[in-house]
């Protein structure tokens, strides 16, 4: 407190941000506050907490100190003013949407999104009477042309899942802001280690923290972060700026300024949707974030070597990794991702569904499962699993063919990963 020293390194912040030694006990590791509720000092304090006049704990559906430590850590790494954690990445997205949308609104989203997100947007938004258009992540003029008076959000992924398409966040945010619309980015695949979308103009960032942030495949979770830069009082967002009937007519943006959207997200949306993160999951994910930069460095190094091996194989049609992509995509990788394409990518086997299935069956070090971003290497066949609910046209739009295989490259030794893949390809 008295010192003027500032510690700004990314590794340092990954280890320390959000987690102070416990003031009462001195515990150095993050304590797991496995409690539903908190004893109030006195009735006045209780009232101040519920009125949001003082930062205080009331009930773990809405806030928890262990979850708070994780929220602050990720917010710090992304350069956000704060974050709110949820039970899953999709719960986080639902809440981000619920907080700023109302019936009659319109959303423009990238075609290159995770299949579960496409399904969520298409069906959940329709039930809420919110219109939706999908636009090409590589043709930003298309987004501009789709803007309507009631458009309330642009939404894309830094690195599309599983297509690997990299979004030009800076240009897209400029198009959004020129129309007083916020840009929401799912940064799950890049993680703040590779890219911090808010530095390029994104207003809201969401994560499935289940993936690289947690990093060990132990816990499902999500987080919504906000830059604090978007002017919610620009006349387009009465749902955020006007007196809220769901919180005794509080005007969230006028009262809390840069914290307004997040306060509403927590005090109303999390309270009402109820998809809170458990303290134990927050503990495990927070432990994972401590080693995020170390793991990501190995993940992306291995991914590049594995992609190189696959591109040289006669059984592989195409490798959808940035090194083998268009010059435009390579430039975007340089601009946003230090030249990397992340550690999750697809390749197309020669042949189709049967060959894909045979290949996956032959692997011994890659685990066949529906997750990514684990320290362990993972493999899946999207057309029959994660993207199964999509039509052929939607599959094509998402860059997925019948023989497409998605890899999540782990932090094992690359020569072992390549040996396993070589053996699998020989079995096809």
């Amino acid at each position, binding site marked *: 407190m008295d010192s003027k020293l500032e510690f700004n390194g990314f590794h340092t912040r990954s280890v320390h941000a959000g987690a102070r030694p416990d003031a009462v006990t001195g515990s150095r590791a993050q304590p797991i506050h496995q409690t539903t509720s908190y004893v109030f000092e006195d009735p006045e304090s209780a009232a101040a907490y519920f009125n949001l006049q*003082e930062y205080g704990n009331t009930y773990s559906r809405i806030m928890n100190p262990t979850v708070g430590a994780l929220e602050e850590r990720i917010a710090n790494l992304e350069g956000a003013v704060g*974050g709110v954690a949820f039970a899953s990445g999709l719960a986080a997205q639902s809440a981000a949407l619920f907080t700023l949308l109302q019936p009659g609104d319109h959303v423009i989203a990238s075609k290159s999104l995770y299949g579960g997100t496409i399904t969520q947007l298409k069906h959940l938004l329709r039930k809420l009477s919110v219109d939706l258009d999908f636009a090409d992540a590589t043709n930003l003029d298309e987004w501009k042309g789709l803007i309507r008076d009631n458009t309330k959000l642009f939404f894309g992924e830094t690195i599309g899942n599983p297509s690997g398409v990299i979004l030009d966040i800076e240009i897209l945010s400029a198009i959004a802001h020129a129309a007083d619309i916020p840009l929401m980015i799912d940064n799950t695949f890049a993680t703040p280690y590779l890219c911090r979308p808010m530095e390029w103009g994104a207003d809201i960032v969401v994560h499935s923290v289940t993936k690289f942030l947690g990093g060990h495949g132990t816990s499902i979770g999500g987080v919504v972060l906000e830059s604090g830069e*978007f002017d919610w009082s620009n006349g387009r967002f009465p749902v955020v700026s006007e007196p809220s009937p769901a919180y005794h007519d509080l005007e969230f943006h006028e009262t809390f300024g840069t914290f307004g959207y997040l306060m509403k997200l927590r005090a109303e949306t999390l309270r009402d949707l109820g998809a809170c993160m458990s303290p134990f999951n927050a503990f495990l994910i927070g432990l994972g974030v401590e080693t995020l930069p170390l793991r990501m460095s190995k993940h992306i190094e291995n991914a590049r070597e594995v992609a190189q091996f696959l591109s040289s194989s006669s059984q592989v049609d195409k490798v959808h990794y940035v090194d083998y992509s268009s010059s435009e995509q390579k430039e975007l990788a340089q601009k946003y991702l230090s030249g990397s394409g992340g550690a999750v990518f697809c390749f197309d086997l020669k042949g189709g569904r049967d060959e894909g299935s045979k290949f996956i069956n032959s692997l011994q070090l890659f685990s066949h499962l529906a997750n990514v971003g684990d320290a362990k290497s993972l493999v899946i066949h999207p057309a029959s699993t994660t993207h199964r609910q999509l039509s052929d046209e939607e599959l094509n739009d998402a860059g997925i063919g019948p023989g497409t295989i998605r890899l999540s490259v782990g932090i094992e030794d690359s020569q072992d990963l390549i040996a396993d893949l070589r053996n699998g390809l020989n079995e096809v």
Partner: protein
Amino acid sequence: MKEKVLDEWQDPVLIRSALSEKRVAVVGMSSKELRASYFVGFYLKRNGYDVVPVNPRESEILGMTCYPSLQDIPDPIDVVDVFREPAAVPQIAEESVAIGAKFLWLQFGVISHEGVSIATEGGVKSIVDRCIKIEHARYLGRMHWLGFNTEQIRATRDR
């Protein structure tokens, strides 16, 4: 989008030094419980500051005497915290200088280059487009309990 402010108006060292003061006049404090100014006055009082509301339309807020202007306050003021439209700031800055305040703290969106110049010339330091409640919560309070980014990296035990 929003009007830009200078980094020197949001210097963490300056902010911490303002927070270490004791007597805070809240100019434009409302008696309505849902207004931001009431939230901030309530919070500062709760956290041990001597809060002095300034509002010509009120006589008492939160049990504290409310004064029509800064110059009507009988005792010295350390920090003048402003919840008014930017056009009102130059006059408030002049009064801050006149009463010997140490800091002029302009809340979110209260941005006045002229007001800051007047304060600076009169020896009053300015903090602009920041919320005193949030900054207190960042450095001394519990903002981190609710997942906000305090930007504080600390591996020592709080004393």
